[in-house]
């Protein structure tokens, strides 16, 4: 049976890992991406996601160079994102060693780009990353360009539309919960995973082992974890062990090669 995935998500700014809170304030530097990726690889994480957080605003893509260096030593699937809006950029990232690319602002500005990308590289290669937060009336809305531009889109409807346009996976990030370690948005995860026929990766809010289980039980195929790995003593091994002993179907080992 297919395992639920545990995925560290790395935010990159100027070639370094950073941590933020609700996408803007409270920046803290969190280390070197290549050496950190190696450490997580040794813990047997299931995938790694890299997002260049300034890329969209500055009109460039995530440093392919970082992906290239990580791919030389780490043999897990890599997803790269940040500022991706052309087929040429996707090709370059895949050549660097990324297996999938995540597309965010371009999915809002030019939805047909998702279909073009899926036709060229296969649905399975295209992860649409949806950032959302509550507006002043408490309604959840999709935000683009690193959370700086509000749209009129409802996140659940938007994600379903992305599925229809041939996204292979949906990465849902609650801006309100980003970096707060206050738990995942279970209500949205549950509603959306019921409506999607493609995998849902839930992001933002992990603060405890119970939070991780709750998000996967709510229907997410995978969870991303960021602050909890960096600022608490919960390692991927600890998360995996907890989930396995509490009935969640996760990979139980890094592998058998001696």
């Amino acid at each position, binding site marked *: 049976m297919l395992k639920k995935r545990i995925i560290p998500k790395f935010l990159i700014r100027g070639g370094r890992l950073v941590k933020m809170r609700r996408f803007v304030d409270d920046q803290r530097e969190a280390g070197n991406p290549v050496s950190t990726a190696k450490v997580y690889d040794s813990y047997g994480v299931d995938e790694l996601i890299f997002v260049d957080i300034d890329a969209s605003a500055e009109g460039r893509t995530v440093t392919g160079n970082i992906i290239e260096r990580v791919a030389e030593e780490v043999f897990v699937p890599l997803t790269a994102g940040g500022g991706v809006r052309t087929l040429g950029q996707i090709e370059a990232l895949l050549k660097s060693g990324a297996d999938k690319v995540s597309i965010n602002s371009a999915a809002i500005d030019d939805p047909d780009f998702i279909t073009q990308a899926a036709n060229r590289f296969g649905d399975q*290669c295209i992860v649409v990353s949806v950032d959302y937060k509550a507006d002043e009336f408490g309604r959840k809305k999709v935000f683009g360009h690193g959370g700086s531009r509000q749209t009129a889109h409802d996140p659940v409807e938007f994600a379903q539309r992305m599925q229809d346009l041939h996204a292979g996976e949906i990465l849902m990030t609650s801006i309100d919960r980003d970096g707060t370690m206050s738990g995942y948005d279970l209500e949205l995860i549950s509603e959306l995973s019921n409506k999607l026929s493609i995998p849902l990766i839930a992001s933002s809010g992990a603060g405890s082992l119970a939070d991780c289980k709750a998000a996967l039980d709510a229907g997410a195929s995978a969870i991303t974890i960021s602050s909890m790995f960096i600022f608490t003593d919960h390692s991927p091994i600890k998360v995996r062990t907890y989930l396995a002993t509490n009935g969640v179907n996760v990979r139980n080992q890094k592998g058998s090669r001696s």
Partner: protein
Amino acid sequence: MTIAIIDYGMGNVRSLMNAFEYIGEDATVTADFDELEEADRLVLPGVGAFGDAMIAIDDKGLRPVLNRLALEVKKPVLGVCLGMQLFAKKSFEHGEHEGLGWIDAEIRPMQVQRPAKVPHVGWNAVEFAPDEWLFKGLPSGESDYYFVHSFHMACKDAADVAGTCDHGGPFTAAVRRGNLVATQFHPEKSQDNGLQLLQNWLAHDF
């Protein structure tokens, strides 16, 4: 040993090259006919759509070369993901496309019941016979590999199947027929289990 990773413009060739380098073998990425002839072993990678991949192979004039090396010279060939699917006679991905036809099989869409999702993305356990050389040193049913695909290979001859997996029903995860070996999963992305499989392939006396 020289390993040539066939470059037809589709596939995560760098990761395959990195994995071979990590286990101590040099691999080159090439579409040069002479280099393919001279290589001891060939790897056929692939990411993307089946029809586009066959067009790309034909655009580079690779089909007769690959057919000769695989079927007449009987050079060991390893297909990965879409590369495995190209071994089949035909595929029903976005229409109907003819494949290389090396394995008597068809490529069909994954059909699953909810809550299972398609694409089949993530780690899943592969089952194989205890004496299966491709998975030597690995426990059947407990060895997870990384999959990312929406279509699967349906083999006519069960003897070609080296490993199976389950996602809303059983499907073929690996095949081998003489000098031809292929995996639906990505050994180059499957950490230790994947590196072990690549070593088994390199160590096998075809």
